């Protein structure tokens, strides 16, 4: 029997992870709050701990946790940071 493919026909290409840095020295770390409850509490603590080590920290927030991050925000983080830490869930 011949049938038509109901899917998007995208081969599931395996994507490699971006290389991880060994150290944070001299790097800029972005902290992304997805706007879920108490994500800021977690990120405030992280910012303090990372800041104590002399690492540059930048803060970002999604407008709402229910939707993917806007393209502009993703672009901003990608161009301004070397590493990003995202606070998921509550």
């Amino acid at each position, binding site marked *: *029997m011949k049938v038509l493919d109901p*899917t998007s026909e995208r081969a599931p290409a395996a994507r490699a992870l971006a290389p991880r840095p060994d150290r944070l020295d001299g790097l800029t770390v972005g902290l992304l709050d997805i706007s879920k409850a108490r994500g800021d509490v977690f990120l405030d603590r992280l910012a303090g701990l990372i800041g104590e080590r002399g690492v540059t920290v930048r803060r970002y927030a999604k407008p709402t946790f229910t939707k993917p991050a806007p393209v502009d925000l993703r672009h901003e983080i990608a161009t301004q940071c070397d590493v990003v830490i995202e606070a998921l869930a509550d």
Partner: protein
Amino acid sequence: MAQATSPVLPDGLVAVVKRECPTCSLVGPVLVGLGAHVVSEDDDRGLELSYRLKVETVPTLLRVEHGRELERTVGWSRQSWEALAGVPGLGAGLPESRPGCGSRTLDPAVADELAVRFEGHRLRSRRVELGPLEDEAESMYDRGWTDGLPVVPPTESRVLRMLSGTGLDPQEVVAVVPPDLIECTVEKVAINAVLAGCRPEYLPVVLAAVRAACTDEFNAHGVLATTMPVGPIVIVNGPVRRRIGMNSGVNVLGQGNRANSTIGRALQLVIRNVGGGRPGGVDRATHGNPGKVGLCFAEDEEGSPWEPFHVSQGFEAATSTVTLFAGEGSRGLVDQLSREPESLARSFAACLRTVQHPKLPAGFDAVFVIGPEHARVFRTAGWSRADLLHRLEELLLLPGSELVRGAGGIAEGVAPALRDTSVPKFRPGGLLLVHAGGGAGFFSTIIAGWANGPRGSQPVVVEVGA
């Protein structure tokens, strides 16, 4: 795959015939006399031309100029043939008229095969050959194309038949489907509608549902990804409900009606197969709900005391619409004693307050499916739809002191700053009132929603197109 080029229609008189038709044999000498170009359905090119001309009866006599058909007549009728050919005195010795025979293109034994042969090139999707030893139901399940229930194999002929339900080009893009943000064509929707078990006449409703779901307002990505138990619910209004035989009465939210059961399922299969949204993947629901297989129902407009829901949203009654609502499973509301509208409104308010949590206001919409016996109480008392909604709004203006965190010994609740305020349970327009259900039972049904408004999902109403 069939050739994409159509046979050329010669100018002059053209007659489509088949060998086994007695009327065709009868008019043979007339055609010779007229010098007509004879197209026989007994050879492949002739059969294709007949298919493309949508000939239903043989003989069919056409007058053609510059490759375009100007007029046609079917069977044998001296008067019609003389008028069409512009030649008097045709067929001396023949009866005045004889009916023709059915075209070979309509023979049920070959009609599907011809559609694939002559129209198959319109379908661009990848062909997947299932092996002769494969059970197709098992194979489609193994390929991940199903929601766990069996699906109908989307063969070329079935998909072509499904596409006959719309006038749209199969390659027209209907929507960009999340979560993978894939441009989804009418053809892909049709394939998934076949999988779901739809009939061709349901396709325009499925297309409208896909369009509505893939708007930024409805936010199908978030509805899929959330841990809350919601899925897309499709409410159908307008003439299309009756035209495709939808259920708005007994067991309206349950099983048993093909349109109700398959339209919502087709939408969910589009999100799964085209969008790539699967449970355990982007779908992170803690519990989900049984309606996520697909939940679609029609409003009982005829039995309603009020204007139809879509009319309350600004559409004409004669327009058909689908309303997409991000909702969880339905739950019943029993009030068998209230015969006064005030008492019944209070019952409704008491139950609606519990949507998601009795201490959480304003954050969630709801669909209220009012049953006919409950609706009758308001009809008798002369309450309009607006009257009931207004009274519910008053009854559901909740005192902050009952809602704040800690009140009632419950940590869940609103911020302490709201203690001395009143907070509405539903935002304006956040309660959708729909009339449906069987004629017996003083019951209604509540379908609670998800995070509402721009931060979550908004109900979206769109017109059902062609």
